[in-house]
C-alpha cells in the first residue's frame, strides 16, 4: 500500500495498493473527486504525489477509470494515467463535473520502454462465472487471465449477463486468485441518456464472488448488462511493497 503526501485537486491522502518493479508498476484503488473543489477546478491535470519514486521513472500512458453515479445511473470512461518520478498524473476530464458522485478507479498497469523478452502469450487459467439461478445467469464470451506471483491482468467479455435491478447481485467467479480484492467498473455497450461515457456498474470482486448493484429500481423485472466487458490490472495480497 502506498499513501500520497499531496495532490493538486484537494483530496489527500490517497492510498493505493501497489506492485512496484522495473518492468511494471501496478496501482489499484479508488478515490472520490470533489468536482466543486477550487483546487480541482484550477488543476489542468490531476497530480498525486507519493513519498518515493516509482521504479519506472516515466511510464507510457495507460488507462484509469472515471465513473459517475447520478441517481440510479452509472456511466464511466477511461482517462490517461502516467507515472512520472514520484507522481501519478491523471488526465482531467470534466464531463462529469457537477453531475453526481464522481470516482477515479485505478486498476492500472504502468510500463516503460519495451525491453527484450520472450514474445509468446502467457497461458490463461480457466475462468467460470455462475449466477445464483437460471433467471440471473451469466455467460462468458471470452477472457484472458494473466496471473503473476504479485500481480495480474484480467480481461473478460460476456455474451449475456442478467441481473435484478436496484439490489446487490452476486455471482460466483472461479479461476481468479483467492487474494484478489478489487472494485472495478463493468462496462456495457449502452449509454445512459444525458451522461457521457458508457453505461457501467461498479463491481466488487472478492473471495470468488463478483457483486454489483445494477441500474433500475428494486422489484423491476430482470435486466441485462448488454455486451458487458471489463479489463483491469490488480495487485495480489494486502501489503505488497515492504518499502512503502
Amino acid at each position, binding site marked *: 500500500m502506498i499513501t500520497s503526501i499531496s495532490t493538486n485537486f484537494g483530496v489527500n491522502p490517497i492510498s493505493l495498493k501497489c506492485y512496484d518493479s522495473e*518492468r511494471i508498476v501496478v496501482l489499484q484503488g479508488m478515490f472520490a473527486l470533489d468536482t466543486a473543489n477550487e483546487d480541482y477546478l484550477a488543476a489542468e491535470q490531476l497530480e498525486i504525489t507519493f513519498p518515493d519514486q516509482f521504479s519506472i521513472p516515466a511510464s*507510457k500512458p495507460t*488507462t484509469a477509470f472515471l465513473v459517475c453515479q447520478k441517481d440510479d445511473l452509472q456511466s464511466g470512461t477511461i482517462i490517461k494515467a502516467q507515472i512520472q518520478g514520484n507522481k501519478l498524473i491523471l488526465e482531467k476530464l470534466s464531463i462529469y463535473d457537477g453531475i453526481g458522485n464522481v470516482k477515479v478507479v485505478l486498476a492500472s498497469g504502468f510500463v516503460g520502454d*519495451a525491453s527484450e*523478452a*520472450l*514474445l509468446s502469450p502467457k497461458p490463461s487459467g480457466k475462468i467460470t462465472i455462475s449466477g445464483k439461478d437460471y433467471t440471473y445467469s451469466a455467460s462468458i464470451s471470452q477472457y*484472458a487471465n494473466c496471473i503473476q506471483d504479485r500481480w495480474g491482468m484480467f480481461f473478460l467479455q460476456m455474451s449475456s449477463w442478467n441481473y435484478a435491478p436496484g439490489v446487490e447481485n452476486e455471482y460466483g467467479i472461479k479461476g481468479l486468485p483467492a487474494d484478489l480484492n478489487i472494485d472495478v467498473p463493468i*462496462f456495457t455497450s449502452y449509454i445512459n441518456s444525458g451522461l457521457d461515457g458508457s453505461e457501467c456498474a461498479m463491481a466488487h470482486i472478492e473471495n470468488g464472488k463478483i457483486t454489483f448493484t445494477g441500474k433500475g429500481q428494486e422489484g423491476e423485472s430482470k435486466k441485462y448488462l448488454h455486451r458487458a466487458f471489463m*479489463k483491469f490490472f490488480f495487485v495480489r495480497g494486502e501489503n505488497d511493497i515492504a518499502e512503502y
Partner: protein
Amino acid sequence: MITCTKNNFGCGPIEFQDYQSDRLCVLNGKFVIDTASEEYKAAERLEIKLPDAFRIKRSAVSTAILISSSEQNRGTVLRCRIDKGFLCIEKLSNWDEEGPLTIIVASGFTVLGWHGQFTETDYEQATFGTGIVPESNRLVVKEDFVYASISFSTFPSTNNGYGPFSIKINQMPKDVDAIVPVCLQSGTYIKGQVGSWLGEARIQGGYISMNLNEDFSNYGGKGSFLIFFAPRHQFIPRVPGVGKIVLSTDDVTCGNKTNMQSLLLGIGGESGISSLELEFIQDNSFEGISFYLAEYPDYAKYEMKMPVLSRGGTYGKRYTVAPQIVSFSEYNKSISLHNLIRSTTMETSIFDASIISDIIYVSDI
C-alpha cells in the same frame, strides 16, 4: 513435395505437397494460368504430367478450384482426376477474359474402380479462436494427411472490418502448411453473377490466415465454407525467441479503411507486457483497422493477441469505452484491431497497457 515440369497450358514448373499411398493420394498446391497464353488457348483440358513414380496412375474424379481475377474473385469448382500419369483438370473458359486464373488443388484422389471394403472414417469437430464459429464441421486428422469440410456461422468479413487475420484452429496439427480455397459468398448474389466469391487461405502451424480485400463488401462472414485435403509433415513451427517490438507511425502502412493519426507500440518485458498509443479516424470504427509491418519479427510468435480498451465517440455519444483485440499475424505481416462490441466511434483513442494474452474463446455474443 513433387515438382511437375510439363503441362499443356504454358505454365512453368508446378509444385504440390503430396501424400501417396496405393489407395489414396493427396495433393496440395496452386498454380497461375496466363489466359493469353497460346498453349492455354489451344488446350481442351489442363494436363500436368505427374512424376513417373507417382503411386496412382488413374483416379476417380475429384476437384480443383478456379479463382479468377474478376470482381470479388469469382470462380468455381472444376473436375480433376489422375489419368495415365497426368493430373487432368477441366478447362472452363467463363473467366478467360478475367485472368490470370489461380487453380488450387487441395484434393484427395482415390483409385478408380475400388471394389474393396469401405470403412467409416473417424472425424472430430474443429473449434476456433475468436472470430470464427463453425456450423457444419468435420475435421479428419490422419497420420499423414488432414481433410476438413467446415461451414461457418461466424467468419471474418470485410463488413466487420477484416482485412488480414490469423485465427487458431485448436485441433489442427501444427505440421500442416496448406493452401485452402475458401468460399466467401455470404449470401449476396449479384444478378447475372457467374460463379461464387472465392479466396485463398493458408493453414500453417495450426492457424488459418487470410487477407480479405478490404475494398470488397459482403466478402466473407456467415455462410463461408472450406473443403480441403492437405498432407502433413510440411510445417515446422518457429519457436518464439527473445526480442521486442517497437513501432511508431512511420514504421507501418495502413489498410485501406484506416486513417491513422498516430501510433506508438512497444512490446517487451517479462510476460509480453505491452503499451499501445493509437489514434485513428474512421467512419465506423467497429469495422476494425489494420496496418502492415515491413517485416514481422522472427522472434515473435506466429500469431499474438492482446486486449485493450479504447475511447471514442460519434454524434450524440462521447467518451464511450470499447474492448478491442489487437491481433498480430506473421502470415500477413500485419497488426489488426477489432472492436468486440462493434460500437461505432469516429475518432478513437487507445492508451493502454496490456499483455500478449492467451485469449480463451467460450461462446459467441
